């Protein structure tokens, strides 16, 4: 094998990546923009807690105890909620429909009466006056529908279950188990998957590149030179590994800027990059399989999604929110093991030598080498290299 040929072809591939705007966007800009958009949407820039705007319509007719005022004070003191009091339900509902608030809570007229009945006989439910609090939520916000009800529920439990103690000490609300202020942000959960995600689109790039070189006669032209198939494939794999490394670095910089700060040392980062490099082999393999099936570069773009989507949905951050069946299916795609290993390292605090991480590395290595081998064999069989 002549290194001169391998390096010349690798250099050529790098120039293509930098000089072709479509390739440059797909490989580098798309993951960076995606990480920024996703991180800003779900992670909270700088690792801050999200704040939900909630409208309150207070219909309470307070008697001896102004319970609604206690509730309002408690809600306002919660950093995760931004409370806005409305004079009437209509205005509040209008703002909800416009997305100005993510929820509207109606405190009923008998709220204080109900609260007083509870205080009189906290251990005798038959003596309580039941009050119903209506809560309207922004149906367009998945986060709001899932996050706001348990927060309100916990606050109601706090002001009743723990009584005056809570109302008179707002700091307990901030740090109590009511709201998980210490919990990782959504960005922390999705960051490991983002490392995996970026590299997946190499499948499309490899497929397009091979199909295009075949279409414009370059593959044939290289075959006429003394370049061996081994030299050619080595240059391709090397090129895409370098690209994967650059992608992972860019994604890491982006998630770091967005607030992802895992408490891990350099060996873990080094291990993470090695995992991404090994994972890139499978993407080259899937790209070659796609290029074998596709008759043109246009077809290669479309067909590449046969491999991109399962890797994306079953093996990255998207998979975490899918059904249990889909999560089981994820175990058949290499990206699952990369994300799992990175999650163990970054979020669960596992060491690089822990059995779970090593098992993931073994699964990634075996599957990726096998997929690459299948890709090379199939492409070589039908098109020659």
């Amino acid at each position, binding site marked *: 094998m*002549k290194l*001169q*040929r391998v*390096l*010349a*072809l690798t*250099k*050529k591939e790098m*120039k*293509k990546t930098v*000089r*072709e705007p479509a390739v440059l966007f797909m490989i580098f800009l798309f993951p960076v923009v995606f990480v920024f958009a996703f991180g800003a949407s779900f992670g909270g820039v700088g690792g801050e807690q999200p704040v939900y705007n909630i409208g309150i319509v207070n219909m309470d007719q307070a008697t001896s105890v102004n319970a609604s005022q206690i509730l309002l004070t408690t809600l306002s003191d919660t950093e995760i909620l931004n409370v806005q009091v409305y004079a009437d339900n209509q205005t509040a509902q209008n703002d909800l429909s416009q997305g100005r608030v993510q929820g509207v809570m109606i405190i009923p007229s008998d709220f204080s009466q109900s609260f007083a009945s509870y205080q009189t006989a906290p251990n005798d439910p038959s003596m309580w006056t039941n009050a119903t609090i209506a809560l309207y939520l922004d149906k367009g916000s998945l986060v709001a529908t899932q996050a706001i009800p348990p927060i309100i529920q916990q606050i109601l439990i706090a002001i009743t279950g723990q009584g005056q103690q809570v109302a008179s000490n707002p700091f307990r609300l901030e740090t109590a188990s009511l709201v998980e202020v210490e919990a990782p942000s959504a960005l922390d959960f999705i960051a490991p998957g983002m490392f995996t995600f970026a590299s997946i689109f190499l499948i499309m790039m490899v497929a397009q590149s091979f199909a295009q070189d075949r279409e*414009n*006669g*370059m593959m*044939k*032209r*290289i*075959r*006429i*030179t*003394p*370049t061996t198939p081994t030299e050619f494939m080595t240059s391709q794999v090397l090129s895409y590994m370098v690209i994967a490394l650059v992608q992972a670095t860019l994604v890491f910089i982006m998630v770091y800027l967005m607030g992802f700060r895992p408490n891990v040392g350099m060996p873990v980062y080094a291990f993470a990059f090695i995992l991404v490099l090994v994972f890139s082999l499978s993407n080259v393999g899937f790209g070659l399989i796609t290029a074998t099936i596709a008759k043109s570069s246009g077809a290669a773009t479309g067909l590449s999604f046969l491999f991109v989507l399962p890797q994306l949905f079953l093996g990255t951050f998207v998979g975490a929110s899918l059904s249990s069946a889909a999560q089981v299916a994820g175990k058949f795609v290499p990206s699952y093991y990369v994300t799992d290993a990175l999650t163990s390292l970054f979020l669960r605090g596992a060491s690089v030598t822990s059995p779970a991480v090593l098992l993931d590395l073994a699964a990634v290595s075996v599957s990726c080498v096998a997929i690459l081998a299948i890709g090379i064999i199939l492409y070589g069989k039908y098109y020659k290299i």
Partner: protein
Amino acid sequence: MTELAVVIESLVKKFEDVTAVDGISLQVSKGELFGLLGPNGAGKTTIINVLCGLIKPTNGSAKVGGYDVQKETAKVKELIGVCPQETAIYPYLTGVENVELFGNLHAMNKATLKKRCDMLLENMGLAGDAKRRAEKYSGGMKRRLSLVLALIHDPKIAFLDEPTVAMDPQSRHAVWDFIKELKKEDKTTILTTHYMEEAEELCDRVGIIDHGKLIALGAPEDLISKNKVKNLEEVFIKLTGRKIREEI
């Protein structure tokens, strides 16, 4: 005895039910400029592809530089330079980058590569545009660059498949001059073309192919006098009953 550069014996190539090359035998001597003439689809490119080792013949054999194209393909690839019919260059590389890439694929040393690169780009009239990306080149410039890629490693045997097709007259004459230079350097060249005037201008001998068969073989002037016509175009008409470009 004349040294043979290319020997083709009873070559047959079938693509499913289509016979592209039908039992062709011919020999090309070292230093000879040989023309393969015929209309599109006659089988010229198929013969070149077999000689390069790109496709296997259905029957028959071919030797290039004394090496069997099927069994000793690696040796053949070291001897040949091929300018394919399609303009195959990397558009995102500059002219000089394209040339250097192919020089490196032929494992040329840096100094020789630089020298040949400068010389060929100059001869082909591309020196001034060498640092522009090939995608910005005109059609004629791309074809000339494609020819430079084929010859950068100074091959002993050159296969030029329709090198002047769709070229402007100025580019065509530049390529003709360049091909004549190859002849002076004692290189063996097989040139495919359907331009009869090109073959008359350049070739020592020509083989006229039609429907995969070799229908005439000899020096252009011999074929013209033997058939008692004015040019090779008329030779083709006399032998086939139709004009060569009717099928283009």
